């Protein structure tokens, strides 16, 4: 049985890119030079100025560059901006339209998978399915914390995908949905902020623990933390309170098996790699084995989300270290 393969998303290098240290093209070359896996994921709204309506010229240049450096496209990371208007959510027709535009961009760029988000309803995805089939682009909804495979939103999608049996509708599990702890580097970073009340941080850690043990509902705990942050006038750290209660999920790794036949791509999320080469806040051993032994043969796309908390870490090196960990587990 063949094993999952290793790849990377350019999201991992967001800091270097935003600081103009590397351009989009330079990052692609770096990924190739440093052998960070053979499969490249990009974030449409980050890398391409003309996204979501990618021009032929943009697509031609991208495909030529990938050919030149020997990388293959894994998944195009799209977004479903359902709340783009403050006054109302996107309608069904608007949602179908934004999915279809991104399918077309994926097709032009050569991507076999378009990652979408939970803002795409089962109805909208079903309506976009003919376009996806014609373009030969699979649509995969990211299962990202605070969602998990048994969240009602995901259950509704699973039911529809299983009913349609199209082979074109599935999921992108994100490792951050199954964590062991809030990353230490995140809490250190939060404590360093000028207007971060320690009372709020302590309250948040307690709330995360209650949600993790199953003693309390994660969504309810999150609303309480956000309410408390606003009450304390800690708006500039609301984002961190939100992150703590949103990005570090509680799903058991083995639960991914429930959707394994519908998994088209995986975000191998990580925050930090310790001196022993492990990710202390994520059960990498169990997760990687679950996908390998569950028969997943797609890409484990390395996604480093810890840049904001580890200001001195080198992103290319972080990905290298995480990929060593993944390779070690795959070979075990």
């Amino acid at each position, binding site marked *: 049985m063949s094993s999952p393969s290793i790849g990377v998303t350019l999201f991992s290098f967001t800091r270097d890119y935003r600081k*103009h240290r590397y351009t989009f093209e330079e990052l692609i070359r770096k990924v190739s030079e440093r052998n960070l896996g053979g499969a490249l994921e990009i974030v449409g709204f980050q890398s391409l100025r003309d996204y979501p309506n990618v021009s032929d010229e943009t697509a031609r240049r991208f495909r030529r560059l990938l050919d030149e450096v020997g990388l293959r496209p894994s998944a195009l990371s799209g977004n479903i*901006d*359902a*709340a783009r208007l*403050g*006054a109302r959510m996107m309608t069904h027709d608007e949602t179908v339209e934004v999915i279809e535009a991104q399918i077309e961009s994926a097709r032009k760029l050569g991507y076999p998978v378009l990652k979408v988000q939970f803002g795409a309803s089962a109805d909208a995805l079903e309506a976009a399915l003919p376009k996806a089939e014609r373009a030969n682009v699979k649509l995969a909804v990211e299962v990202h914390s605070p969602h998990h495979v048994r969240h009602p939103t995901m259950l509704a999608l699973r039911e529809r995908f299983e009913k349609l049996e199209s082979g074109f509708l599935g999921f992108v599990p994100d490792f951050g949905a199954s964590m062991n702890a809030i990353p230490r580097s995140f809490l250190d970073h939060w404590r360093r902020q000028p207007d971060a009340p320690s009372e709020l941080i302590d309250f948040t850690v307690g709330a995360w623990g209650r949600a993790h043990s199953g003693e309390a509902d994660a969504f309810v705990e999150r609303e309480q933390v956000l309410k408390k942050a606003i009450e304390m006038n800690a708006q500039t750290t609301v984002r961190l309170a*939100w992150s703590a209660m949103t990005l570090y999920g509680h799903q058991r790794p083995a639960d991914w098996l429930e959707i394994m036949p519908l998994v088209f791509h995986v975000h191998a999320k990580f925050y930090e790699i310790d001196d022993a080469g492990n990710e202390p806040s994520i059960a990498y051993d169990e997760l990687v084995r679950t996908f390998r032994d569950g028969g997943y043969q797609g890409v484990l796309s390395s996604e480093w989300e810890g840049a904001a908390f580890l200001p001195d870490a080198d992103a290319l090196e972080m990905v290298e270290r995480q990929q060593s960990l993944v390779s070690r587990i795959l070979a075990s």
Partner: protein
Amino acid sequence: MYELIDGPLRRTGDGYEIPIRFDWYRSLPLSCVSVSVRFDGLPVPDDAIRFHVNERDYALDEMAALVDEFWFVLDAAKLRIRTEEPVVDGTHDVEVEIALRIPYLFNEDTGNVLTVWSRPRATMVLA
């Protein structure tokens, strides 16, 4: 952290302009961006501010509808501020609040959408 006030304070024909960036990993539609400014400690009226991006000026109250106009993640925008009197040369205290509504991060049950705020502040010299 990026420097969110990114570049010099410049005089314009009818006031001054402040270059700003935003702190998110991807481009956002202008409909998701709100800004406000304090200059030397005083609030600047919204209707004196124009948001300049993609080689165009936008009034703040027209941005809410602009779902297809994006602030690209690598670009600085300029806040172009009209003043009654010319601003004096020298040192000024500039404070900007940038609120980003993150359009794909919402709670299906409550309808709450994540908003992230930054409040960059800088002492800038107009010469």
